[in-house]
């Protein structure tokens, strides 16, 4: 619990109490890829070379990776000296852009055809990488029924390097690289009798739409409640599509929400998480999916837990935007 020593490529680095392995290595100018520093983007994955890393540093990793002692350097606060190595470079697959359509003024529906078969769970995310190596995380917006097709909802951030490029310069017919799917925020077909509550803000609808498509396809028999929020009506999308889906499936319920101004007929007034958690006060045995703005995700996680949900039943992807220094 005091200072520990991290050995990286034969070089010892002191790691102070309360300092993550990532911060210790970066402090010594060792270049470790990273993004969110919150355990969300998984770009800082490393491997422990001398036994199991602290379990909380493996949050969100797939079982295979856990067993191979991979861990997220930004979540790793060592309790003992450790020898660590780089995660053998990510597997990337080639894909071709086959569709580009606006969902609203700031969000693009990007559809890719993957040359290999993608084995993913609905709700997972991938890293998209362009030719110069710049890569960002985006959630898969479709179900597993399409083994070669992946679609994404990419929100344009003013001055955002990847998103501006994807909106403005990436064209149908271009090639792009796609990492293996990652993350644990996905639909589990093992428990079709459990109610599901899904809350998303902005492009956080992407993974939720994939999860809902998958759940309905799998014959999920209990209630599925979706709350999608944005500041204004312009920020919402797929309103008609989701309403239509709700008409076809009696156990699927959809509530679009806006947090500013007066909500028109059929749209709830308030932040999506506030509206949802007020409408469903008792969440014992519910499964939750929370995607989008990190503040929304963190607040809702806590609130849902207080309203009876088990932590292990709360799945989330906080869309942490990479820090401006990251390449």
């Amino acid at each position, binding site marked *: *619990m*005091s200072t520990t020593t991290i050995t990286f490529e034969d070089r010892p680095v002191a790691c102070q*109490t309360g300092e993550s392995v990532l911060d210790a290595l970066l402090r010594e100018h060792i270049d470790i890829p990273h993004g969110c520093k*919150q*355990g969300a983007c998984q770009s800082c994955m490393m491997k422990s070379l001398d036994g199991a890393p602290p*379990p*909380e540093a493996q*949050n969100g990793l797939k079982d295979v990776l856990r067993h191979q002692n991979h861990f997220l350097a930004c*979540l790793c606060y060592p309790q003992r000296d450790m020898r660590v190595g780089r995660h053998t470079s990510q597997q990337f697959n080639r894909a071709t852009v086959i569709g580009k359509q606006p969902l609203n003024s700031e969000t693009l529906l990007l559809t890719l055809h993957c040359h290999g078969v993608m084995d993913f769970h609905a709700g997972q995310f991938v890293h998209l990488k362009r030719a110069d190596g710049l890569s960002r995380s985006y959630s898969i917006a479709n179900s597993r029924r399409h083994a070669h097709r992946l679609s994404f909802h990419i929100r344009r951030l003013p001055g955002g390097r990847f998103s501006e490029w994807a909106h403005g310069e990436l064209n149908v017919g271009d090639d792009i690289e796609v990492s293996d799917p990652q993350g644990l925020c996905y639909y589990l077909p093992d428990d079709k009798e459990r109610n599901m509550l899904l809350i998303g803000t902005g492009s956080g609808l992407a993974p939720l739409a994939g999860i809902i498509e998958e759940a309905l396809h799998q014959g999920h028999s209990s209630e599925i409640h979706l709350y999608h929020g944005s500041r204004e009506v312009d920020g919402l999308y797929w309103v008609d599509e989701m309403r239509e889906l709700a008409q076809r499936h009696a156990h699927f319920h959809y509530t679009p929400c806006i947090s500013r101004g007066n909500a028109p007929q059929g749209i709830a007034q308030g932040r999506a998480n506030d509206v949802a958690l007020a409408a469903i006060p008792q969440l014992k045995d519910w499964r939750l999916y929370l995607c989008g703005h990190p503040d929304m995700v*963190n607040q809702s*996680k*806590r609130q849902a*837990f*207080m309203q009876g949900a*088990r*932590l292990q039943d709360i799945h989330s992807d906080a869309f942490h935007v990479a820090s401006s220094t990251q390449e």
Partner: protein
Amino acid sequence: MTENTPSLYEQLGGEAAVNAAVDIFYRKVLADYRINRFFNNTDMERQAAKQKAFLTMAFGGPNNYTGTDMRTAHAHLVEKFGLDDSHFDAVMEHLTATLKELNAPQNLIDQVAAIAESTRDDVLNR
């Protein structure tokens, strides 16, 4: 006493009992205005892992914590946030209430309380 007497941890139900207790205990702590400011860190998974470490220790389970570790883990809370006996008492309340909720027998609850109580001076850095 034979050599086969199960330990307190085993009598309580081992790791499964700790797992069952974590959510209940953590929810009580977060709901208690007297102490929840100590746990306002947003990373709930990490917090829950620490709660698990706490409960494993109090249940007499395997852990490597020493009194010095307890001092270091709580020193900044004493110095910067005024951690004192009243907060310690609140945690003790939630610990016993959690075990009651899980229908643990009173004699085991008493033993858990005694283990937790024995750390008081270390936790409060006295």
